[in-house]
């Protein structure tokens, strides 16, 4: 059976490099993936108000699509989609009345949702199902000499019942980088918020966060930063322009999706990396290390 895959909106445009590199990597790992039919936006942020049920309809509808594929697991790549789908799922599992109301609202759906879909993130699948030792065996181009700082951000690790890794000191991405023979770099800002959607109306705040997070990674010797959230990557990459305006001494550093490094290591073609979508060009450092 193929793994159901929920891409989410940003993976289809600004984060095409995330999707293409992830799908190529999964192919190299012999994992069959099938995109959900008729998926819709998850709503991006999980609604935190007690009475705001309407905003859980969109994520739950996507879980019905998983059932329509006769599956009970769905893979996400985007950390925000992962968090929103998984939290909405948890909420309806914990509150049968909420589930009933949401099902009633979607009375035209042929399947009633019963809280029986498991929401997984690709990192979890790599770690628990495919296993890092098997990935290591398939490495064609080891990432030798590349110092990688893994930035987890918020949505992969918090809250505690949703994150699949240690919420204060996660290491799943670092372990993956080790399996690819890169050199993981520890840095103390790996779970500090990048400012998220504030990037729309408060660029300065995001530039400030970008400066702190990336400077910390650089001070530990990182060549590149990897992440799993299209919003983190947008902020940490694109907002370096603003960061340079505020802090002229700031040195740029490429920010990649962890899947792009995975794809390189597994021998995917350069076209699946879509390195053209970055503001800070990762080509020079990757060429210097002999990786592309």
């Amino acid at each position, binding site marked *: 059976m193929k793994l159901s895959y929920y891409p989410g909106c940003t993976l289809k445009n600004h984060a095409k490099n995330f999707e293409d590199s992830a799908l190529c990597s999964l192919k190299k790992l012999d994992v069959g993936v099938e995109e959900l039919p008729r998926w819709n*936006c998850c709503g*991006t942020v999980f609604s935190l108000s*007690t009475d705001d049920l309407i905003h859980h309809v969109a994520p739950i509808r996507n879980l019905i699509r998983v059932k329509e594929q006769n599956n009970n697991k769905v893979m996400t790549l985007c950390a*925000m989609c992962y968090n929103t789908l998984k939290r909405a799922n948890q909420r309806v599992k914990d509150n049968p009345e909420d589930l009933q109301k949401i099902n009633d609202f979607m009375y035209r759906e042929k399947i009633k949702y019963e809280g029986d879909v498991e929401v997984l993130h690709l990192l979890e699948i790599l770690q628990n199902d495919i296993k890092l030792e098997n990935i290591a065996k398939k490495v064609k181009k080891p990432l030798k000499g590349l110092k990688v700082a893994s930035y987890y951000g918020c949505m992969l690790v*918090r*809250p505690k019942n949703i994150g699949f890794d240690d919420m204060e000191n996660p290491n799943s991405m670092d372990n993956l980088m080790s399996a690819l023979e890169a050199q993981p770099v520890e840095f103390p800002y790996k779970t500090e918020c990048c*400012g998220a959607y504030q*990037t729309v109306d408060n660029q300065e705040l995001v530039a400030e966060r970008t400066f702190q997070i990336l400077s910390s990674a650089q001070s530990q010797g990182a060549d590149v930063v990897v992440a799993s959230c*299209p*919003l983190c990557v947008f902020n940490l990459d694109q907002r370096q322009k603003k960061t340079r305006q505020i802090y002229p001494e700031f040195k740029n550093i490429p920010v990649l999706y962890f899947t792009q490094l995975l794809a390189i290591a597994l021998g995917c073609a350069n076209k699946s990396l879509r390195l053209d979508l970055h503001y800070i060009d990762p080509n020079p450092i990757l060429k210097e290390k002999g990786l592309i």
Partner: protein
Amino acid sequence: MKTIISRQKIRSPFVAKVEELSGQNLLACYQCGKCSAGCPAISQMDLPPNQVIRYAQLGLKDELINSNTMWICASCLTCNVRCPKGINIAEVMEALRQVLLRQRKDHVDINKLSTKEKSELPPIALVGNFRKTTS
């Protein structure tokens, strides 16, 4: 600034609304300050998160709705996972935003964003922002 504390304010419908929307017991907070200590955005806030909780306990509605704190908070949940009393501070911030948004008092005006900004920003940023700052 003179702040007046009164039983009326503490027992006001505003406090009840914040507790209802957030699902939190505000009086559980004993002001340890751990939320503020770990908040990555505190330098931009005019009221630190622990003070927001204190003001909410006291029903200081005007001070709270004129503060920028709930709009700076991006729900990263660092405070929630560290609170020794199990209070979800981010949910209180959401409740404060909702109190205003449900009166159509938007924080961001979509019409003021240029076409260039809108095309450069990814959907994840736009949808997230509009969900949090507009009604």
